[in-house]
């Protein structure tokens, strides 16, 4: 089996996270078996602002527009969204 090193996911940020990171979307290469928690840890190394993703404040995650958990595995071409707890209504 050959690892598919060209696999990527789209990562989106909303609200406070979007403003804090200064980006609303980016494309990230993933290894097979990568989980949400792995992706967060990788993103957190991009710079000081990015440590917010693994800090004390809660970060929610959705995969392909459905809520997911830190242990959920990613698949190529998934849309991963990170955002603060929701505050609509």
């Amino acid at each position, binding site marked *: 089996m050959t690892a598919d090193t060209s696999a990527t996911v789209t990562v*989106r940020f909303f609200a406070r996270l979007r403003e804090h990171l200064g980006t609303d979307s980016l494309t990230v290469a993933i290894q097979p078996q990568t989980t949400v928690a792995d992706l967060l840890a990788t993103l957190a190394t991009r710079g000081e602002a990015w440590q917010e993703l693994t800090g004390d404040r809660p970060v929610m995650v959705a995969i392909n*527009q459905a809520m997911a958990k830190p242990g959920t595995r990613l698949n190529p071409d998934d849309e991963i969204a990170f955002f603060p*707890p*929701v*505050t*609509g*209504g």
Partner: protein
Amino acid sequence: MVIIQQQDFDLAEEYRKLRDSGDSTGAIATFTGLVRDYGDLNDVTGLFLEHYPGMTEHVIEGLIAEAGKRWDVRAARVIHRVGTLALGDQIVFVGVCSAHRGDAFAACQFIMDALKTSAPFWKKELSRQGDHWVEQKDSDREQAEQWRESSD
């Protein structure tokens, strides 16, 4: 029916559509949320509302479907505005029609409570002190949890 839009909505029009859903409808409950002059800050002048297009609609449609399993729901309509809103503006409308008044009230309140903790909207308060992303409130989580405990 779930609509996410920047423009204002007309309660009378929403009510008319609910009422047109059939002669067996005995009860229509509605809820409308408005921009208040206080929140986390005390001199709120408006709100900015951001959402996750697509996911928002799916989540709310799921809440309406769940309400339909738990109560008699003949029709339900949800409208949520996004973008910049001024003091007193309408933010959200939830309307449910049912054969029974208890079901209309319960389904309307359930959809509204669950929307607040599960639909991907984020609210930024605008004030003369500056802007401020609103934090989720414990009371909203507890309100939504109540519907789990009373689950059949």
